[in-house]
């Protein structure tokens, strides 16, 4: 221990080897932001060793939750879960409103997991006025889950644009920012605008001049769909600082199905 090189008085971290197992720990704990986060997500999707190591850290960190006091949630929570799972339209007004607000998401969930087709039917019955790209025949959820979604986000009148492709099969997204250059002062962060009006979801900071592949979290893939809007905001380097409002919207686009 006395030979531990990390005991040096220099505190610049230069002597620390940030290897993959360490990046996996940083990812597991949620320490990363911006490009580092995107890079780690990409690695997780493509590198089994990295994915194994991330789970190794998850399994070591999770016993920390044993010191958290357990709490009893109120009874309505189960009622709400059951209503969602059973698509129970008769379970009260609040649930119906809740379901309606999630309609878009359900449609996509149903398209992705055909087991949910029956539920989808129930949801459509609740709000027949909603436009749906999904057929209502429970035996034939024919919307191809594999069809990619694409969006082009033109940047002002520069003629440049972001090309965003989402592949539902693999839950991967490609963001191409070819031709863009960094100005050294700002980063640009891409956001998904969920159709149900809930909070914007960050798709990460754009890497100028490159095409980056990332795997999306379930939170985000649940909101993916035809017509869903993307906005690009201008942020300080590293992306939107937490606790502050997002910067100005400089471009926007919408997904459409190929």
């Amino acid at each position, binding site marked *: 221990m006395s030979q531990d090189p*990390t005991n040096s008085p220099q*505190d*610049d*971290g230069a002597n*620390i*080897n940030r290897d993959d*197992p*360490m990046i996996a*720990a*940083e990812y597991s*704990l*949620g*320490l*990363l*932001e911006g490009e580092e986060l995107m890079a780690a997500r990409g690695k997780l999707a493509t590198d089994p060793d990295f994915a194994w190591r991330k*789970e190794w850290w*998850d*399994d*070591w*960190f*999770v*016993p*920390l*939750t*044993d*010191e*958290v*006091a*357990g*709490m*009893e*949630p109120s009874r*309505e*929570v*189960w009622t*709400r*879960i*059951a209503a*969602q*799972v*059973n698509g129970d339209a008769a379970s009260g007004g609040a649930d119906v409103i809740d379901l309606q607000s999630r309609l878009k998401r359900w449609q996509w*969930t149903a398209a992705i*997991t055909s*087991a*949910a087709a029956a539920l989808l039917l129930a949801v459509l019955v609740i709000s027949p006025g909603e436009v749906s790209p999904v057929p209502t025949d429970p035996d034939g959820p024919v919307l191809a889950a594999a069809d990619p979604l694409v969006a082009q986000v033109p940047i002002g009148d520069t003629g440049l644009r972001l090309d965003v492709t989402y592949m539902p099969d693999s839950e991967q997204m490609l963001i191409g920012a070819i031709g863009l250059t960094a100005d050294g002062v700002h980063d640009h962060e891409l*956001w998904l605008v969920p159709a149900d009006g*809930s*909070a*914007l*979801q*960050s798709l990460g900071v754009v890497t100028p001049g490159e095409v980056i592949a990332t795997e999306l*979290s*379930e*939170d985000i893939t649940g909101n993916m769909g035809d017509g869903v809007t993307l906005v690009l905001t201008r942020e300080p380097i*590293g992306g*939107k*600082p*937490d*606790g502050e*409002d997002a910067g100005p919207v400089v471009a926007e686009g919408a997904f459409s199905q190929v």
Partner: protein
Amino acid sequence: MADASTDAATIAREKLRTAMVRLADGDSAALEEIYAATRVKLFGICFRILGDRKEAEDALQDVYVNLWQRADRYDPARASPISWLATFARNRAVDRLRTGKVRGGAVPVEEANPLPDQAPLADMLLVDAEQSAQIHTCLTGLDEKTQNHIKSAFFDGYTYAELAEQADVPLGTMKSWIRRGLQKLRACLEASEVRS
């Protein structure tokens, strides 16, 4: 005595594992069983992270609905079901905390974090007493500051940048503190795996 409680925990874990497998096979009745066995622990985690009862209940709902939608992601051969569920709940709650801030700050954590002053409920499923002891032993080997930063990342969802801001140190300093800690932690945990 210890054996009796260990057996009870093992049985509970196996029952849960079976229910998870049934759920993955499309048996939605299994969800209620899983909820009954795990809601107290998972709600505790959601509340600890979100610091607000309403938010935590929404997060909990989200956890189980997602579980039902994608139960096939759980690999019964790999992880203990409660540890997988607790990780899942923790990650969903942290995601929620972050997206909530985008909308204009739903829950300022610092304000809304009164920890419930109560003992863990007796019937709460624990992840694993042995593992729990080991991670604590290894964390205790780090200096106290670093321990707290790592725990804060885990429970409060803070990133490097946020931790640096709170400690009022440059980002690079915070990164090197934590990375040094993670390096030691890994060595300590791996050594414990070799022993066992």
